């Protein structure tokens, strides 16, 4: 346990460690000027960078957080889900006001109620903490020396954007290819996802976030969390080109390398969760042309449209059951893609038999143009070039 004999000659010794992360350099500079930092340092507090830190899990509290001990912390942050602050599933994090954090940390006791309870000081006396007092705004005004802001160039046309071509964290985007105007035929099933498939199943977070600026590298997590309806395993799908089984990203890359488009099939509320665009960009990057599901989470459906993909729903939900592991998809009326008009798909099964199914879509005129251009950005780029 923490005990700061060095800095506390008198008074109450805090039973817990204190950490402070100021919200901005302006606040930090002003509270230092006004002596608050000094007071916290007398309590042995660690002053962290003006940054998110422990509030988003950027806290190097343990070397092996997954096996961390059962313990309790109190903070004045916003979220306290399991592992959120320190990666330790055994940390019990409680959220309260900053003044209550201070009182509870001094007492070291989650049950401490400063309104009614007393603490024992180093003379053995029972003392009660006074009610908090403070200032809405600094009486001497805010102050800061260097606020850390850089104003952009008035004319940035000659500024070079710095991306090292050998970086594993950043990669300039190439832009997706436009639609060739023909019906898509011969597309292979990549995965038929069963049950819940959130954006975390499609593009897993955690260590993968390191690659969020590198589309090709982060694509190696594509759909690795989704459960394959055939076999019930995650990240194990059939490669129809050679009959082998492999990881989803590897099989997708094999199709892409062979010039074979692929299709993802999903269940209800496909793509719920975070709104991050990687969940749409990655399948697109790996050669997936269509995502056909029972129903979409709305934001993910829009993201698929923006990246130039076909986001379709089964007109008859039960058609989900017609999809077989070795299926080939032919989009036979894509050349007539129009708002409010269903798209027809031939499912060619491995035994040569065939089912024809209808799918719905919610593309408006403008969104169909995104699909034709290859992505919404390609469309914007073309418009910008036309206006230049």
């Amino acid at each position: 346990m923490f005990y700061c004999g060095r800095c506390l000659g008198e008074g109450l010794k805090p039973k817990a460690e204190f950490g402070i992360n100021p919200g901005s350099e302006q606040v930090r500079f002003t509270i230092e000027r006004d002596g608050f930092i000094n007071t916290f340092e007398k309590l042995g507090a660690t002053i962290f960078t003006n940054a998110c830190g422990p509030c988003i899990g950027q806290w190097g509290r343990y070397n092996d957080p997954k096996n961390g001990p059962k313990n309790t912390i109190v903070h004045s942050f916003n979220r306290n889900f399991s592992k959120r602050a320190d990666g330790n599933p055994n940390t019990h994090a409680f959220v309260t006001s900053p003044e209550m954090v201070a009182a509870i940390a001094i007492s070291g006791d989650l049950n401490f109620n400063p309104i009614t309870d007393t603490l024992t000081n180093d003379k053995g006396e029972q003392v009660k903490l006074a009610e908090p007092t403070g200032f809405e705004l600094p009486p001497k005004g805010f102050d800061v020396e260097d606020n850390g802001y850089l104003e952009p160039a008035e004319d940035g046309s000659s500024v070079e954007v710095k991306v090292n071509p050998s970086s594993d964290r950043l990669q300039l985007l190439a832009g997706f290819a436009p639609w060739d105007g023909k019906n898509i035929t011969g597309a292979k099933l990549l995965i038929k996802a069963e049950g819940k498939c959130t954006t975390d199943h499609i593009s897993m977070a955690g260590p993968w976030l390191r690659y969020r600026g590198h589309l090709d590298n982060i694509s190696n997590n594509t759909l690795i969390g989704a459960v394959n309806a055939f076999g019930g395993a995650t990240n194990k799908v059939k490669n129809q080109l050679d009959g082998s089984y492999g990881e989803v990203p590897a099989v997708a890359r094999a199709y892409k390398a062979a010039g074979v488009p692929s299709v993802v099939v999903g269940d209800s509320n496909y793509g719920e969760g975070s709104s991050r665009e990687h969940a749409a960009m990655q399948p697109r990057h790996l050669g997936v042309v269509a995502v056909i599901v029972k129903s979409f989470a709305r934001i993910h459906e829009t993201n698929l449209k923006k990246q130039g993909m076909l986001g379709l729903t089964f007109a008859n939900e039960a058609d989900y059951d017609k999809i077989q592991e070795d299926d080939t998809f032919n989009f036979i009326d894509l050349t007539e893609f129009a708002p409010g008009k269903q798209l027809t798909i031939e499912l060619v099964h491995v035994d040569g038999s065939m089912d024809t199914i209808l799918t719905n879509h919610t593309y408006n005129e403008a969104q169909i143009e995104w699909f034709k251009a290859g992505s919404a950005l390609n469309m914007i780029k073309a418009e910008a070039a036309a206006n230049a």
Partner: protein
Amino acid sequence: MDFDPDRVAMQDATAQMALLQFMQAGKKKVAVPSTVHCDHLIQARIGATADLQEALNKSHEVFNFLESVSNKYGIGFWKPGAGIIHQVVLENYAFPGGMMIGTDSHTVNAGGLGMVAIGVGGADAVDVMAGMPWELKFPKLIGVKLTGKMSGWTAPKDVILKVAGILTVKGGTGAIVEYFGEGAKSMSCTGKGTICNMGAEIGATTSTFGYDESMERYLRATGRADVADLANGVKEHLTGDDEVYADPEKYFDQVIEIDLSTLSPYINGPFTPDLATPVADMKEASAKAGWPTKVEWGLIGSCTNSSYEDISRACSIAEDALAKA
């Protein structure tokens, strides 16, 4: 519905793909004022100086990319260590009656200054920076009427901890939460920011307050007297009409009333922000649930609670403890 937001703010994790995409749009500059804030890629370990240097060593290529791409396309750049995106936005950019989007769920913090501020994915930020309209399903309205005045140990945080307990982590989904009443006016602007910030924890699209004198004081204290003067000129349009606040049930889909005079301090958790326990009841609750009661760390700060007011109030407790020999 389509909207044209006034600003875009991005943090260093989500900004990467957003700006890589924006580069594809063929534009010379962003269409609306936009900023990048380097606050996510810094690990807290030893203390500010050493931790910041470690982050620069580890992630310099990301910071260099963000700095250069910002410089090229007219985007304001806040360096690592400059501060947390939502606090910096509140201090510099948020304004009453404005609308902004940000690539982080706690963008909603700017509601404390009377903004409609909404957290979005990178693709939405790209659209707005490229000049495209931004689409949002028109939200429901939840009204929270605050009566009375806080005192003693009760803080603005306790309002949202109480609201989270009432509405749960899903109760605000698809809704804008508007706080109003005498209790709202008696609260600081940064306290309002705390409440709006944690609106993300109940799933709300955003939360906001009508313009009042606390916001004017904050604008003037942060060097924006010009914005305060402009806001004062149209202040009747920057808050709800009297008849709405007089008869909220008629205008809001749901109304919650909280009396600040009797609101007691709360402590929420563990593992979820909507498990609300009054501090006075924690002995019973922790014994029943078997939560470890020995507290190892107390952490103060973050985008939610790192205002001058927050730190000064927490500091008064620290000073009192030091003095009670």
